[in-house]
């Protein structure tokens, strides 16, 4: 029960952060996340070798090439940054690789990585467990002081942990290590995916108005016009 409460309160916390996220523009994100500490991505980090082929480096972040106006973070190297605790990772949920090793982080909430569905490689200090537990990753190995979580598993296919049945009109999709989300099927939208298609408002109102005018005037001519004012 208590676990439930903590989970839900943490969840709420994450939601607030996510909402906050929306209002944070990319400049702030750059400043807060990519300039978290001095310097840039270390050359011996796996993020560096990843970024050379896939994008360009800016501060501690790796951005995706040839994206027109939106900066998409695809890699993040915060290793050796003297971070003691991580609350959230702003809008780096598009990242494929994140390095948090060599930091004095004491514990790390699973909810930090909620929504990080692209994440395939995560480097953590060795005393921390992989988010979502061992079962959420293809391979987990410890190299000296670094724990490497590799190959995120799809939470929707893990029937062992919890039988995941999304409600009607929605489909389960991965939502970060150990997380899933129920997104509406094609054509469905709105609260609980209950609505389908767009109501032809103008058409319906137009037809109804026109027929009301016609019927009213016909009836007026045949009926009320004959009213005798006595």
């Amino acid at each position, binding site marked *: 029960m208590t676990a*439930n409460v903590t989970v*839900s309160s943490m*969840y709420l916390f994450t*939601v607030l952060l996510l909402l906050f996220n929306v209002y944070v523009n990319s400049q702030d994100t750059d400043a807060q996340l990519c300039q978290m500490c001095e310097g840039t991505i270390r050359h011996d980090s796996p993020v560096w070798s990843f970024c050379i082929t896939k994008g360009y480096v800016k501060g501690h972040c790796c951005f995706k090439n040839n994206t027109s106006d939106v900066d998409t973070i695809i890699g993040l190297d915060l290793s050796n940054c003297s971070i003691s605790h991580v609350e959230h990772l702003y809008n780096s949920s598009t990242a494929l690789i994140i390095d948090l090793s060599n930091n004095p982080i004491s514990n790390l909430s699973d909810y930090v990585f*909620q929504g990080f569905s692209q994440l395939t490689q995560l480097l953590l200090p060795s005393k921390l467990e992989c988010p979502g537990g061992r079962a959420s990753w293809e391979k987990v190995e410890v190299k000296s002081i670094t724990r490497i979580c590799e190959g995120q598993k799809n939470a929707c296919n893990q029937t062992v942990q*919890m*039988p995941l*049945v*999304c*409600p009607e009109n*929605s489909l389960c999709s991965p*939502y970060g290590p150990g*997380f*899933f*989300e*129920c*997104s*509406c099927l094609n054509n469905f939208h*709105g*609260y*609980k*995916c*209950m*609505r*389908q*298609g*767009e*109501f032809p408002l103008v058409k*319906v*109102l137009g037809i*109804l*108005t026109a*027929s*009301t005018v016609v*019927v*009213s*005037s*016909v*009836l*007026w001519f*045949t*009926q*009320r016009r*004959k*009213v*005798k004012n*006595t």
Partner: protein
Amino acid sequence: MWPLYTYHHLLTFLLTFFSYVLLHASRKTFSNVKVSISAQWTPSALQQNGTAFTLSPTETWEGNALFADMGEATLFLGALDSIFLFSYAVGLYVSGVIGDRFNLRYVLSFGLCGSAITEFVFGTLTEWLHFYNVYLYCVLWVINGLLQSTVWPCVVAIMGNWFGKSGRGFVFGLWSACASVGNILGAFLASSVLKYGYEYAFLVTSVVQFAGGVVVFFGLLTSPKEIGLNDYFETGLRPVTRDSDSQRPLMSDEEDELTDEYSSIQQQDEEPQPQPQPRAIGFFQAFCLPGVLPYSLAYACLKLVNYSFFFWLPFYLSKNFGWKEVEADRLSVWYDVGGIIGGTVQGLISDLLGKRAPVLAISLLLAMGSLVGYSHSPNNQLVNGALLATTGFLIGGPSNMISSAISADLGRQEALHNSQQALATVTGIVDGTGSIGAAGGQYLVSLIESKLGWMCVFYFFIIMTGCSVLFIIPLLFREIQSLCRDRQARTLQL
């Protein structure tokens, strides 16, 4: 025997018919979208192995929490139904009185358009604004009940003005199919737009109802007097009726009540024959009219049974026989069909006989038998449907007749000497008393069912039907007496 009808009669029939059809369609819409509304008001509860999971994204699955779960929402919807029925019953008493004092056309249009706007705010606007509030819903539904209650007394009064007593039973029997037609239309409208969201079901029915109010405003003639039709020599129409005074309209539509000075000036100008303007009857005066109280009480018992069938039948069928909800819904239509045919046929018989109480009494006595039969129905849809249609014929028929034809008879009886407007007031009293019975019955049926089981519910129905027969007995004796006197007189003449 049959009066000649003009196309004005036909248009009046259709306009009043469809006014009530639209009203009942929007009521049915509300009961058909209940599942969607309660889903909208609650967060989704994904329970597995005893623990609740929260679903992502939260805005889609957990955003609304007006009620914790579907059970609470269903309870609230049930409470809304009771609120509606109660304010509807109270409103009927009031709006009949109003209908007799103001122009019936204005009151009818106002009721239709006003309740359409209320439904729009209730179902569509709150959803568009994502504003969900229990108190707002309650207040809106009370207003809706009051506004909707204006419609029935007005349409019955208008129909009573146009259709004389001789053919009234048959015409009103046919006409009172409007509630059932409204149910079918409402179910159709709701099911065809529900996929866009429940707010559009409300939008469509309320806009159509508003349009109906506009059409009524521009097209309805509240009495033949408005176009001088009661002047039989002018139009060449002379209804051959035994009591031709009932053909004359009681309700005038000259806003005389609104502008007393105006009409008095006009009277001075024209120097007409001193025809007294009909004055509206007082509420208690109407209550004391002969026949009003017995028929009101009889209707209270009968509407209880009738509405219980309307509300509980699909539930009973799927619970008791294990039939699918769709099958149960489809089968329950036969009760409505029986009611329409019953109202028309019994109305016709009562027209030919010239008396209504004997027809009612015989039908209700038979109904008690058919209720016994129905409670022992075998698990066979064909047999059950046939029994259901018979029960509808015997219960729905008299129920339709009291609420329409007999209300019109009572509001234009000889005791009034054509000097008072009583039609809408009397209709309001009869239907209002009936609605109180129906509202109380909904509670009693669920209570009896949960404590004593379905068989006792049927015994309760049989007792209630018996009570309505008891209330009619004094009238029955009087009518049979006068029937015998008529026959004796006729034999003496020959």
